[in-house]
């Protein structure tokens, strides 16, 4: 198990060297960014079992704050990162408290609604650029602008953050909080009858999830240098986080990374190959994959891998 992680770490550290091409370097940087996002969602969606479809609200807040700092006060965008996290946590608490009283579909609906509401408000608010969005520094004025021509520095920054979020998830999994969350996930009423304060732990999970999502949003803004309401608050962002986690396997440590590692290249290549014709094939493929996944193996690819291992084990024993 330990060796597996070591091997993974080495692969991830060395990956940029294998691709001497800016397009691929950017692609793997995006893989890591989305792995961070999917892993952050996983904390509350996979481990706590609270399926949120509105995580874009944290991503968007995290993305907007650095560029707000730049646009209005010409400050270094990094200064906006802690502010973004604080605002996201505030939102998590504000909506978490009433929303976690809901269950199942109601919860998902509520998260979608709040995220959409925030998107609409941002679209009509002049101070944050309304529909025009906000731009970042065109080129790095100082090292603190984090403006790089190559994607490689971003890749390593994302890698550090991914290590952080996975580290946190691992710690949480083995801590009391993880224990309580598992209890809540498998049967909330039973857990509560045993004295587990479900709302409190769900809220903690949501806060942790919001922190990492917001951080990822800020890093995205640094890399792209531009944000607008649709690209960072849109429902597709939320859905994509969920799909990646689900593809790999929710509630597992490595599932989100697997999901991101598969989906981002798939999307990128599908668009590069077919997009130019403009017939929407990319989305048909994407949708088809989602349907097949949820129909045949909702546990995600890791579940398929586990079946495979189990079958190998059985075969070994009978022979």
């Amino acid at each position, binding site marked *: 198990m330990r060796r597996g992680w070591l091997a993974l770490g080495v692969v991830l550290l060395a990956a940029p060297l294998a691709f001497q091409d800016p397009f691929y370097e950017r692609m793997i940087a995006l893989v890591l960014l989305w792995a961070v996002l999917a892993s952050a969602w996983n904390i509350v*969606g996979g481990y706590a079992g609270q399926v949120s479809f509105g995580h874009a609200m944290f991503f968007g807040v995290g993305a907007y704050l650095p560029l707000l700092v730049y646009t209005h006060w010409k400050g270094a965008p990094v200064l906006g990162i802690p502010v973004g996290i604080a605002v996201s946590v505030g939102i998590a608490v504000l909506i978490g408290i009433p929303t976690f009283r809901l269950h199942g*579909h109601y919860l998902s609906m509520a998260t979608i609604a709040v995220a959409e509401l925030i998107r609409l408000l941002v679209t009509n608010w002049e101070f944050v650029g309304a529909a025009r969005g906000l731009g970042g520094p065109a080129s790095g004025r100082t090292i603190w602008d984090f403006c790089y021509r190559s994607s490689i520095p971003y890749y390593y920054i994302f890698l550090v953050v991914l290590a952080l979020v996975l580290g946190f998830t691992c710690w949480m999994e083995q801590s009391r909080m993880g224990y309580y969350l598992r209890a809540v996930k498998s049967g909330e009423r039973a857990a509560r009858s045993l004295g587990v304060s479900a709302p409190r732990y769900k809220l903690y999970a949501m806060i942790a999830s919001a922190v990492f999502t917001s951080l990822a949003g800020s890093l995205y803004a640094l890399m792209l240098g531009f944000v607008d309401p649709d690209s960072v608050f849109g429902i597709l962002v939320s859905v994509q986080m*969920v799909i990646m986690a689900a593809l790999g396997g929710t509630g597992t440590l490595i599932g989100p990374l697997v999901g991101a590692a598969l989906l981002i290249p798939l999307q990128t290549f599908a668009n590069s190959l077919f997009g130019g014709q403009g017939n929407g*094939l990319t989305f*048909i493929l994407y949708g088809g994959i*989602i349907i097949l996944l*949820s*129909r045949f193996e909702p546990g995600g690819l890791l579940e398929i891998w586990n079946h495979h291992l189990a079958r190998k084990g059985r075969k070994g024993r009978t022979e």
Partner: protein
Amino acid sequence: MIALQVVVGGLLLGAVYALFSSGLTLIWGMMNVVNFAHGDFVMLGMYIAYLAVVVLHAGPLTFTLLAAVVLFLLGGVVYYLLIRQVMRGPMLAQILSTFGLALVMRYTVFWFFSATFVTLPGSALGGNVKLGSILIGIPQLVAGIIAMVLTIGMHLLLTRTTLGSQILAVSEDRQAAMLMGIRPDRMQALAWGLASASAGVAGALIATFYYLTPTVGESLVLIAFVVVCFGGFGSVPGAMLSGLIIGLIQAASAYYIGPVYKDVVVFALFVAILWVRPQGLLGTV
């Protein structure tokens, strides 16, 4: 009287919302499945109407009927091939599967029709009637009235016929229904067919006054969710009432507060309902 004009316009549109939301609430209440593709079923209804007019030169009655039948069958197929299995799995997989379905439906239509907007030929010339001091577009009036009638019809079907009570029985207690000799699978497929058919009819009606584009499902499904939540999951009369109310609120906030705020008000209401009274007006949690 502009206020009356706003009210009537809102109610007519609300009636159409009620029609396609009643199907959604039936599925939701019965099978606890969130159908993200519901807006795209409506979109398909629109395009079937368009094809019927362009290829078969069909009249309004024909294309509406055609939309209903085709979508009824599609609903059944989707149930048997996808929903039945996915229902047994985790909730996440259910939501994702209908989301994937929405994407596939949307972009398959996009493949064939690409991005150009089309409208039903001849609909630009639809006139209007004057009732007192207010003007009502004829397509909107017809759509609103038919939507209302059909929604009431669906409610009567569910509550006054044997078939309807069988469907409701399954939604209330699946095991008990099986014990009474009702086949739940069949009832659920039927419910899916009904829901899809009502979405299809709503689409055909909308096509008479709105333009057609493959991506229209995206915004329609969100409205449907609001209506269903407000009205109460599983309650068709609830969907009817709340559809009208939501249509009214939208129109009123657009006129009195500002057009950009109409969606803000609807979503804020949505959030408020979920927090304060998740079971909606007429639903049971």
